[in-house]
C-alpha cells in the first residue's frame, strides 16, 4: 500500500464508519428524536433518556396527534398517565418537563398550542416553582433560556421562531453523530429490562428505574437521598415578592398562559401536586407555610380575574390523606402512593384524574383534594 492508497482508504473507511454510527443511533433512537421503531428486548426502553427529555419533548410531540396536554414538572410526568381510562376518547400527550420552572413548562405547552388543535390542558403546579431566590429578589428579571427558545417552533407570542430549523438540525446532528449519542445507544441496548429509565411515546415517565434502588436498598434509600437535597433547597432564602414589592414573574407567565387558553377556547384544569408528609415537615421546618397559603391565594385570585369560562382549580397538596405512608428498609417494598417525598406514583395520579373527571368519566373515585374553583 502506498501513501495515496492509504489516504484514499482512510477517507472511505472514515466516511463509512461515520455513516454506520449515524444509522445505528437513528435506529436505536436513545432520545426518541426520530420515532424509530421500538423493538422489544433491543431498543424498547430508553435507558439514557433522563438527561435529554427537554430535547425529546421539544420534537417528539410535533409528530403526534393530540387534543389534550398534560403540563408540569417531573411530578406530573411520573404521576399522570395519558392512558388513563378517563382519557379514552382523547389523544393525550404528557408534556411535563423534569426540572423545568413554570416558564419553561408553559412555553413548551404554548409551542404545541400554536401547532395543534388542543382542546384541554391539565397543569400541575408546585408552590416551590413560584418562589424566587435572593438574586431575583434583589433584581427580578425575565429569565429566558435562549437554548430552549431556539428549540420551540413558535415563540411565546405565537410568532414563528426563525432559529428553530437550525436548532433542529443541530439537535438531530447531536443525536446521530456524537459520542454521547453513541454512548446512550449502547446503554439503551445493554439496559433492556423493565426497571430501566424510559419515556413512553405519549411522554409518560413510568419511573420504573426507582424500582432498581427499592429492590436493592428499600424505599427508605430514596427518601434518605432526596430529603437532604430538598432540605438544602428549601433552607435558602425564598420569596414570593421581590424587594420592590412585585410578585414573582412566574405568576405573570401563568396569567398570560390562561388568557391565551381562554382566547383559544381551551379547557384548563389546574391542580396542585400532592407532597409526602416528610416534604411538608421541611416546609414547616423552614417556616414556608404562610408563603404556601399566600401562594394559593394569589393563584386563586389570578384564576378568578381571568374569567376563563372553562377553568377549574383543584388543590391536592393540602389534602394529606395519602401522604402518611412511611418508607422501610424492606427490599423490593415500594410505597403505594409515593416514590419518594416529592414524587407521587401513577396510583395517586389516577385518583387525581378520577376526581377531576368525575362528571364525564364513569370511574369510581376515592375522596381526594378540594375544588377551589
Amino acid at each position: 500500500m502506498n501513501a495515496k492508497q492509504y489516504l484514499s482508504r482512510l477517507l472511505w473507511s472514515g466516511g463509512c464508519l461515520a455513516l454506520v454510527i449515524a444509522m445505528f443511533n437513528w435506529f436505536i433512537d436513545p432520545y426518541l428524536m426520530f420515532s424509530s421503531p421500538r423493538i422489544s428486548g433491543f431498543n424498547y426502553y430508553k435507558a439514557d433518556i433522563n438527561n435529554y427529555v427537554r430535547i425529546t419533548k421539544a420534537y417528539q410531540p410535533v409528530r403526534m396527534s393530540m387534543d389534550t396536554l398534560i403540563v408540569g414538572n417531573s411530578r406530573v410526568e411520573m404521576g399522570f398517565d395519558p392512558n388513563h381510562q378517563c382519557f379514552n376518547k382523547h389523544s393525550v400527550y404528557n408534556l411535563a418537563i423534569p426540572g423545568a420552572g413554570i416558564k419553561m413548562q408553559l412555553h413548551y405547552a404554548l409551542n404545541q398550542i400554536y401547532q395543534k388543535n388542543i382542546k384541554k390542558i391539565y397543569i400541575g403546579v408546585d408552590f416551590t416553582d413560584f418562589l424566587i431566590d435572593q438574586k431575583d429578589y434583589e433584581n427580578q428579571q425575565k429569565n429566558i433560556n435562549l437554548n430552549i427558545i431556539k428549540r420551540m417552533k413558535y415563540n411565546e407570542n405565537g410568532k414563528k421562531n426563525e432559529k428553530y430549523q437550525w436548532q433542529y438540525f443541530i439537535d438531530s446532528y447531536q443525536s446521530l453523530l456524537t459520542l454521547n449519542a453513541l454512548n446512550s445507544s449502547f446503554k439503551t441496548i445493554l439496559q433492556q429490562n423493565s426497571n430501566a429509565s424510559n419515556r413512553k411515546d405519549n411522554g409518560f415517565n413510568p419511573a420504573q428505574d426507582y424500582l432498581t434502588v427499592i429492590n436493592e436498598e428499600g424505599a427508605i434509600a430514596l427518601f434518605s437521598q432526596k430529603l437532604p437535597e430538598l432540605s438544602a433547597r428549601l433552607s435558602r432564602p425564598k420569596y414570593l415578592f421581590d424587594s420592590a414589592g412585585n410578585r414573582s414573574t412566574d405568576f405573570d407567565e401563568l396569567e398570560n398562559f390562561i388568557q391565551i387558553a381562554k382566547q383559544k377556547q381551551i379547557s384548563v384544569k389546574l391542580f396542585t401536586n400532592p407532597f409526602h408528609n416528610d416534604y411538608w415537615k421541611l416546609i414547616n421546618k423552614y417556616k414556608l407555610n404562610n408563603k404556601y397559603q399566600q401562594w394559593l391565594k394569589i393563584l386563586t385570585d389570578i384564576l378568578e380575574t381571568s374569567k376563563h369560562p372553562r377553568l377549574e382549580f383543584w388543590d391536592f397538596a393540602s389534602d394529606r390523606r395519602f401522604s402518611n405512608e412511611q418508607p422501610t428498609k424492606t427490599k423490593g417494598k415500594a410505597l403505594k402512593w409515593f416514590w419518594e417525598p416529592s414524587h407521587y406514583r401513577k396510583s395517586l395520579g389516577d385518583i387525581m384524574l378520577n376526581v377531576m373527571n368525575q362528571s364525564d368519566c364513569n370511574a369510581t373515585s376515592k375522596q381526594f383534594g378540594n375544588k377551589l374553583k
Partner: protein
Amino acid sequence: MLIFGITMNLGLLAYFKYANFFVENINLVLATQLSIANIVLPLAISFFTFQQIAYLVDAWKGETKEYSFLHYCLFVCFFPQLIAGPIVHHKEMLPQILRPTNLRPQATNFVIGITIFAIGFFKKTVIADNLALYVSPVFDNTNLTASIDFFTAWGSALAYTLQLYFDFSGYSEMAIGCARLFGVKLPINFFSPYKSTSIVEFWRRWHITLSRFLRDYLYIALGGNRHGKVRRYTNLLLTMVLGGLWHGAGWTFVIWGCLHGFYLVVNHAWVHLLKTFNLSIEKYKLYQLFSWALTLLAVVVGWVYFRAPNLEQANTILLAMAGEYGANLPSGIYAQLGGMSNWLADMGVGISQGGGKQLVLNALWVVVAAAIALKAPNVVEIFASKEKVSCDSKIQFQLSSLHWLQWDYNNRWVAKTALMLVFGILTLTQVSEFLYFQF
C-alpha cells in the same frame, strides 16, 4: 541590546500575566486597596515569549544565521504550535521552513501527519474530556469539606493526573501532526512520563520542550552545576519555582514549582548517595516498582496544587486523600457488596447517599486511561521502525521498536486511524477546552 530585548519580552509577560497577582499580594501584605484595570491575557504569550528570548540569546551568542524577518515571523507564529507548544527552537524550525521540498504537498507527510493528529485528537477529545467529568465537581466545589472523602479525593486527583497528560500530550500530538502536513517536524513533547521511576526521569519525559528551555536558558544561565552542590541545588529549586510561576500567577503554582524543585534535589541527593556507597539496587524489580509508585505519588500531590483554584482547596483535597475526612462508599455500592460490607464497616468505611454510579465510572475511566498511559507505546515508539517523527535528535530513551502497535502502511492502521478520527469528530459539538491554553 540583549538585555533590552529580554526585558521587553519579560516586561510584557510580567504585565499581562503577573500584574494582578502582584497587586493582590501587595494589598494583602500592606492592607492597601490598590487596583489595576482588568488585564486580558494574550493567547500564547507564555509560549512565544520563550521562543523569542531563546532566539535573542542565541543571536547574541552568534549562533543564529541571517534569516529574513518574514521567516522569523513564521517561526514565531507557526500556527500548529503557537498556542500551547511544543516550544520550538529556531535551529530546528527555520531550516525546515526554508527547505524547498516543503513548499509542495507530499502524500507521505499527509499520511503521517493525519495519523499522529488522529492519535492526539482521540487522546484529547475522548480520553481527557471524559476524565474531566470527574475532576471539576471536586476541584471546583466551593463547599468541598461537606462532600469530600478518601475515595472521591483520590478518584478526582487521579482523574486530573491522567486528564492533564492526555489533554496536553494529545494537543501536542495534534500540533505535531498538523505541522507535519506542511512537511515540518516538531519536537516531541511527551515520552510516556508516567512510566518514570524517578522525578529526574519524569522531567525528561514530561513537557520535554519546556524542560529543555528551562535547562538551557535558565538553569545553565544561573550557573547550572558549575559552582558546587549547594549552588546546583539552589539553581534547580529556583528554576522549578520560576517554571511553576510561568504556568500561572498564583501561589498554587509557586508551591507546585517548589515541590518539584524539592523532589529534584532529593532525587539528585539520593542518586549521589547510591553512588557514594556503591549501592546498585536499581536493578531489582521491587526497587523499580517502589520508585515508580513513589514518583507517581509525588507527581499526583503536585498536580493537586497545580489544579486547585487556591491553597485551601488543594490542602483540603490532600487531607482527604490522607483519610482526614473519612472514607465512604455510596449505599448503592454497599448494597452490592454482600458480606464484604461488614469487613469494610470494620475498616471504618462509612456509607454515603447515592447509587455510586459516578464513583464506579470514575474508577473505570482512571483504570482504562492509566492502562493506556502506562502500557501503550507513545507516538515516537509507534512510528519508530518506519519514521522519525520528532525533529529533536536527542530522544534519550530506548525504543520498543518491535511493539505490536508499530505503525505501517496497512489496513489495520487505516482502520485505527479512521476510528480515532471519527471518534474525535463525534465529540466536536461537545463543549471542551484545552487545559494548556490558559498558560
